[in-house]
C-alpha cells in the first residue's frame, strides 16, 4: 500500500494505528536526516520523536498530499529550529526552507525525444572532468555500486558518491541549457 493510500484509509477509518504504520516506514530515514544535521544520536532520536508527535497532531487535522515531502520538511524544520535555539551553525542547505513539496516533474524531459535526450546526455558526459566522467560512466552505464567503483578507481566511497552526485548535477545543468538554446 502506498503512503497516499494509507493516508486515505486513515481519513476514512480514523484508526491511529494506520498513521503509526505510515510513520514507522520513515523512522530510520528520519533518524538519518536528524543525524545529518544534529550530529548526535540522542539528539537525532529526540528529533524523530518530535517529528512523530507533530505528525500525530497535524495529520488528523490537515490533508497532506505528498507525505514524504511533508515529513521531510517537518524534520528539517525541527533541526533548523533546534540549531538556531542552541546557537549552533546552521548549514546553508537547511536554510533553504522551501524544499520541493512535490516530486520533481519529468514532463519536460519526456517531451524531448528520447534519442535526442540520450545524445545530449552523452555530450554532457564528455564535458565532465575525468573523475566525474569515470564514476558516472561506471555507475550509470555499467551499473556498478559505490563499493565496486571505489575498488576499481581507488577513490574513497565518499569521493565516488560526490563525483557521481556532482557529475549528475552538471549533466542536468548542461542538458537544461541545451534545451533552452
Amino acid at each position: 500500500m502506498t503512503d497516499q493510500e494509507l493516508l486515505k484509509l486513515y481519513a476514512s477509518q480514523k484508526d491511529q494505528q494506520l498513521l503509526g504504520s505510515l510513520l514507522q516506514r520513515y523512522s530510520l530515514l528520519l533518524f538519518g536526516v536528524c543525524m545529518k544535521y544534529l550530529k548526535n544520536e540522542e539528539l537525532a532520536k529526540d528529533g524523530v520523536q518530535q517529528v512523530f508527535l507533530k505528525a500525530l497532531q497535524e495529520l488528523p487535522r490537515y490533508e497532506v498530499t505528498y507525505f514524504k515531502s511533508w515529513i521531510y520538511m517537518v524534520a528539517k524544520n525541527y533541526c533548523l529550529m533546534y540549531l538556531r535555539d542552541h546557537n549552533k551553525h546552521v548549514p546553508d542547505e537547511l536554510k533553504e526552507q522551501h524544499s520541493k513539496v512535490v516530486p520533481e516533474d519529468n514532463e519536460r524531459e519526456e517531451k524531448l525525444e528520447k534519442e535526442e535526450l540520450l545524445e545530449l546526455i552523452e555530450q554532457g558526459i564528455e564535458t565532465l572532468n575525468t573523475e566525474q566522467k569515470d564514476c558516472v560512466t561506471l555507475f550509470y552505464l555499467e551499473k556498478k555500486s559505490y563499493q565496486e567503483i571505489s575498488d576499481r578507481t581507488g577513490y574513497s566511497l565518499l569521493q565516488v558518491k560526490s563525483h557521481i552526485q556532482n557529475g549528475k548535477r552538471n549533466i542536468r545543468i548542461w542538458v537544461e541549457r541545451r534545451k533552452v538554446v
Partner: protein
Amino acid sequence: MNKNLLDILQSKEVPIENQQVIDYLQGNLKPEVSQELEQQELEDEMMRDAMDGLREVEDTSRLEMIAREMNQTLQKKLAAQKNKHKEVRKWKDMNWISLSIATVLLIVVICYLVMKYMKKSGLHF
C-alpha cells in the same frame, strides 16, 4: 546508445524499506541491489540526507536497535494518545450525566419553591 543514461535525469520517489537500508549500510546487499539503492539515493533529496546521516553511525550493527527503539516509542505514543482520547470521551460522558442530574435537581428545587410560595400566599391550583 545506452538507455541507462536516461537514469541520470531521473528523479522519482520510490518507497524504501528500513531493513533494506540497514542491510545496505551493513554491506549485506548484492552489488546490483546496492547500486539500485544508491541510484535512488541520488534521485531522492530526503534519502540523500538520510543516508549521509546514517553513514555517521559508526557501529552499523546498532542500526536495527535504533530503528526498533524509535518504533517502540512511537507505539507508546500511539497508545498514550488512544488512552487520552478515551479519557476525554469518558470525561465528556461524565459531564453529560452531571449536567442532567443538576438540571433535574434544579427543576425539583424550583418546583418546591414555587409550591411553597403559593401555599404561603394562599394560592391554589
